[in-house]
């Protein structure tokens, strides 16, 4: 390295920086080290596409988060014995050390409220709450052995998203974006949408970046109005004035880049250019009216009317445009009471669109490279809450399903006991789910790390086992 300092020639520097590093940065496949310390200056594009540890099966993820926790006993997990013992007290040894949220654990058992039938070649058992899902069971893997550590909503959702009950850890979308970068030049890499009655209990921490750089946090899109905050030109500003303003900002920034030589200014120029592109691309993305009538019907989507169905269709459009991680929240499945009525409504609101998403991804060829995950933060108690039409929170056993992106289709994995209380076979902890998701994306989950507070952190913390039985 030369020690004699030449007089400043920042113009030269800026040109080189601008064209070599910034102008084409997003398209190039520079292999960045996953283990690089966080930059205190964003001089290296932190969203540049990166290669994972090994060849991935999935490039994108769509996570359908059924917030509030759906009852596994009403949809997936057929328990004739629970029906038989309806109205009796659970065996005391089952309750040893068991903590519940609202009820006295020693409450009477409540038989399943819906009838199960076998569907598809795989013979998966489902109730008639999910008639659409039952048509695609051969495309999905039903995981009946899910367990978690939390039995309250906010900690449960945060655990499902970040691998820890304590707030402050990066979400899986943030980890994946950190690990893989973005394929989209004009949309965020990690997009979150919500439908249903309310937002998730965990709030924005569900898609936060924790201690990872903030560029990796999820960006909320709305399915009506401005999809992204402050996307539209201000009132009275037409596109000509906006373009001229941006041109001026760019010229002024370039002049200053020349004077100071700070490549951060080049990054700022790029940020404004991408913002301008987003002003066009995001509304175009959100305009589902351009989809065929058949597609809209498949999902049950209606342009201009926000719904889970619209969000599912948008998820497919996002993935098509290179968005890495899409998360759709649908609250609330929290049926402490009015179980029959409310879970029927929840299924009516989500079943068709979730199944349509799989069908649509499949026919557009995206399913192979898109991992779809459906589930909530925990399950529901086999015991009743209130009179005879509600269930409390239950962490010991619940069901999720996964599809695409390297997941073995048409299987049911795991088993709970006769009452649907504990998992007895092929237990999958939330950490194991994370390890498996990362594996499908090409990561050895123990090696996708970020050093913080003097130690390497990872999504699975010190836990997590790959679930090979789920892999195609």
């Amino acid at each position, binding site marked *: 390295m030369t020690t004699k300092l030449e007089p400043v020639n920042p113009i030269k520097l800026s040109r080189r920086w601008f064209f070599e590093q910034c102008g084409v940065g997003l398209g190039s496949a520079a292999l960045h080290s996953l283990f690089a310390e966080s930059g*205190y200056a964003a001089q290296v594009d932190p969203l540049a596409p990166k290669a994972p540890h090994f060849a991935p099966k999935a490039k994108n993820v769509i996570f359908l988060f059924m917030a509030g926790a759906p009852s596994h006993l009403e949809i997936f997990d057929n328990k004739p014995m629970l029906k038989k013992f309806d109205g009796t007290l659970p065996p005391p040894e089952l309750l040893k050390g068991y903590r519940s949220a609202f009820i006295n654990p020693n409450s009477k058992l409540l038989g399943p409220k819906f009838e199960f039938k076998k569907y598809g070649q795989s013979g998966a058992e489902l109730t008639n709450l999910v008639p659409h899902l039952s048509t695609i069971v051969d495309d999905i893997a039903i995981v009946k052995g899910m367990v978690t550590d939390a039995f309250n909503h906010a900690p449960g959702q945060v655990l499902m998203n970040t691998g820890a009950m304590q707030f402050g850890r990066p979400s899986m979308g943030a980890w994946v974006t950190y690990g893989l970068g973005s394929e989209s030049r004009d949309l965020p890499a990690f997009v979150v949408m919500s439908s249903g009655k309310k937002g998730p*209990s965990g709030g924005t921490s569900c898609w936060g970046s924790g201690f990872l750089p903030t560029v990796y946090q999820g960006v909320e899109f709305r399915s009506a109005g401005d999809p992204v905050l402050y996307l539209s030109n201000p009132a009275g500003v037409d596109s000509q004035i906006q373009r001229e303003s941006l041109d001026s900002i760019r010229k002024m920034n370039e002049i200053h880049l020349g004077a100071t030589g700070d490549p951060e200014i080049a990054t700022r120029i790029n940020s404004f250019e991408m913002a301008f592109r987003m002003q066009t691309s995001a509304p175009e993305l959100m305009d589902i009216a351009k989809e065929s009538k058949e597609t809209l019907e498949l999902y049950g989507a209606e342009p201009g009317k926000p719904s889970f169905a619209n969000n599912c269709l948008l998820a497919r459009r996002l993935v098509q445009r290179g968005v890495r991680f899409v998360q759709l929240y649908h609250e609330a499945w929290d049926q402490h009471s009015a179980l029959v009525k409310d879970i029927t409504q929840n299924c009516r609101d989500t079943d068709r669109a979730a199944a349509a998403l799989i069908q649509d991804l499949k026919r557009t060829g995206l399913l192979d490279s898109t991992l779809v995950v459906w589930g909530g933060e925990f399950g529901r108690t086999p015991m009743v809450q209130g009179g005879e039409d509600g269930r409390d929170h239950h962490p010991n056993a619940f069901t999720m399903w996964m599809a695409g992106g390297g997941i073995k289709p048409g299987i049911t994995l795991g088993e709970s006991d006769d009452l649907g209380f504990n998992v007895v076979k092929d237990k999958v902890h939330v950490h194991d789910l994370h390890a498996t998701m990362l594996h499908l994306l090409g990561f050895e989950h123990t090696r996708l790390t970020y050093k913080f507070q003097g130690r390497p952190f990872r999504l699975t913390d010190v836990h997590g086992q790959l679930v090979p039985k789920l892999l195609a």
Partner: protein
Amino acid sequence: MGIQRRFTQTAAARAVIAAIPLAALFYLQAQSKPDFNKDIRPIFETSCYSCHGEKVQSGGLRLDQQASALAHLVGIYPRVAGTGPQQRMPLGAAPLTPAQIGLIKAWVDSGAAWADTATSAVPKKKHWAFVPPVRPAPPTVKNVKWGRNPIDRFVLAKLEAEQVAPSGEAPKATLLRRLSLDLTGLPPSPEEVASFVKDTSPKAWEKQVERLLASPHYGEKWARQWLDGARYADSDGYEKDKPRFVWAYRDYVINAFNKNLPYNQFVSEQLAGDLMPNATQDQKVATGFLRNSMVNEEGGIDPEQFRMEAMYDRMDAVGKNILGVTIQCAQCHNHKYDPLQQEEYYRIFAFLNNSHEGAMAVYTPAEQMKIADILRRTKEIETNLQHRNPTWRDRMAAWGDAAMKVAQPEWTVVKPEVDDISTGGQKYILQEDGSLLAQGYAPTKHTVKLTVKTPLKQVASVRLELLNDPNLPLSGPGRSIRGTGALSEFTLDAAPLGDPTAKAQKIKVASATADINLPESPLDATYADKSNKKRTMGPIQFAIDGVDETAWGHDAGPGQRNVPRKAVFNLAETISNESGSVITFYVKQNAGGWNSDDNQNQNLGRFRISLSSDPKATADPLPMAVREALAVARDKRSPQQEQALFSYYRKTVPEWKDDNSTVEELWKGYPEGSSQLVLNERPSVRETHQLTRGDFLQPGKLVTGGVPSFLNPLPADGPVNRLAFAKWLVSRDAPTTARSYVNRIWLAYFGVGIVETAEDLGTQSSPPSHPELLDWLAVEFMDKGWDVKAIHRLIVNSSTYRQNSVASEELQAKDPYNRLLARGPRFRVDGEIVRDIALAASGLLDEKVGGPSVNPPAPAFLFVPPTSYGPKVWNEAKGSERYRRALYTFRFRSVPYPMLQVFDSPNGEAACVRRSRSNTPLQALTTLNEPMFLETARALAQKTLNEAGAEDTQRLRFMFRRVLSREPSGAEADELLSLVKREQQNFSTAGRDPWKFAANDPEHPPTLAKNVTPAQAAAWTVVSRVLLNLDEAITKE
């Protein structure tokens, strides 16, 4: 790393590396036999010993002992190279570099020679940060002309060693902008710049430094950094995320910096201000630091579980924010890297574990004076009464004797069983005295069902006592934000005990008495329930009238409401069962509002039920304190008891009516104040256990308060409590405390700390760029009495700080992150300051310091479902409150303020001592289109047109000075003057209303100066918007 590589590697080198497996390449380079001590042991030390060393021997392997290592020799290379079937080593950490792997292979292949030194235990040098700093002598430097103070000697010595020359001084205007942004977070006014540029006196710079250090905005600027680490937010977090009252703590921090409170005092007050002798309001408020943890009041929680979560959070905050040592790891196991044992973690934990978590009333200085005045005048009136009635003592004694003679009914306290379903999610926790303490989620309407099994044969009356508790807001006795509650209905039924077939019979309440019966008044608007029904509070009869909309209230007004109260219910028929009875009470609490995710409950906070066989029992009119004082023999009473007695007694004397009403009037002026979450030490010690794997359900051995052995010892004098811990943190021999804070100050100035990992100075921290400078600053800080402003003065007066930030290409290449400090700092300011700059430049900034947090404009949908979990109140501020500094923006943890979130402000979910600094398109959209930024652009344009003169060049210069603190260059002027011309034409197009863009409210456009057109206002708004969006505008350079 990436950037350096890009600069240093040639394309050819890249091609070679791409073609050959990396490990092999490095192996080729490392063919010569590696030296164990030089090449191998350091790898083992940093990457392996934590699991295979002296303390831990995972899989039985010890890499610090030859025998063990050689026994496992064949496995070592495949494991670290990841070539075998097993998991790659080191587990859970980054793999070794190809160079290291190459060395290990070469070492193994060459026969694994082992140097003797490794077998005999070599005393390991203690990690630098765990040794108390001693003041190093500033090094000698060749260039004796450069540099003003010792900081510069340390910096220059390193530069000379690297053969790099420092940069020259930055232009004066740039320097003053840098200094103003650093010390106050606000840009200098054009006048301040002009006067500094003109000032040629030798002390010109120092004058500016002192002016800015004395500004009240200095405290605001430096408070923000501390508040990040203190995980400050205005709401609880988790699902409910209710607003909370903690701005008094935020103001405490601002004032502490402004007063230049010594840092050791500042820290100890936040850890244990409540335990200091004669603690002031400020010192108690300071403990809000520990209370900034999130609170989960989601229905169905175990309050103890989340108290423990909050404890972990406090430990984490103390570790990162004050100690600068990561202690969180030891929550579950011994620290893997630092010498912290799990037991030591729980010994620190024990210091913090013995507190009540309540909220105290806080008053502004003016309110405190008002209160002192009320107390003084009350005392005056009482003394006066006593003077005028010399026999008062005897009369009071006679009254007391009579009062004590009135027989009190015999009460039996019962311990009810709580029906879990009936609580609406609130937790009723049984206390030792038989009372129930309400915690957790607070439903705004519920009827709790309480069952008691009593052996009493006769029950004719029931007493309900409302009690204070340090864990309730303002000590209760209720759970409303004022510590009050309301009882809508009190009903009961009963059945004979021991007869499972008996059906419970409803028991009517015939009459009721209470020690407070207020006149009927409508519920406060806070508790509106959208029912349109008339809802009121009033006397105890409201609790037995069968009407849910009326309730017994006990809010006697500020200064008088947070006292115990009681009511007695006489049953219409005595419950009479030879075998005893099962009695179920239904305690209806319906006086809350519609939104249980907000502070709208009026639940009873702590209460106790007692039974009596006396059908005529009434509520004792004497307050508990008065009865207690009366029970003490007259000559044994303290003056305070005597005073309290008199204050009560005088009210019973009819002829003193006038004086009594004067006092009553006086107390009506008692200020409402606000409240603040604080800690109070519990009188009895809560046991602390070491928790197995950090799980509070698996308590291990009992531990007592203590400190880690690798740090300084606990002060020998005084009790071993939270205060001792606070003093220990800031004792002169604490190795990390001073280093940690000066490092964070440095980080704020230069964008990166001397130790980059500001939250962790432990063995895994990044090595300091200037270790001796760090120690020198730390010692200087402590020796000057932990004087924070003195450290600022040293830094900003140094030549290092005053360098030009323009980077040559070579310098950019050699030192992209400016770790050598051969140039001045240049980086984007923090999110809050991004906004403050726009507000200040536009002239809109409201400079008020302190007070409740404010709600500037934000999209309304953010605060309602389905975006937020529950509905949140965000009443957009009108008038100048919109334009307060961003520090005062209300912070909901679950719905962060969008502008601040997008510019990397932390949301307070965990302590943050080092922010990310991103540069994203969402930031661009925000500064371009967010309503507040538009308002600032418009205001700046109008101010310019009104004040700058008629020439466009004058206007442009005016704007430049306000936004960038400098004059435009020729090229810049050309660009923007042509822009304004074009836009003027654009906005003059027929049919176009320029006010649509240029006015906040196009229906009511502002008045413009003479000869100025709306099209000009719009065109200049385009220009001001361009200027406010420049990288330079939001950058300190």
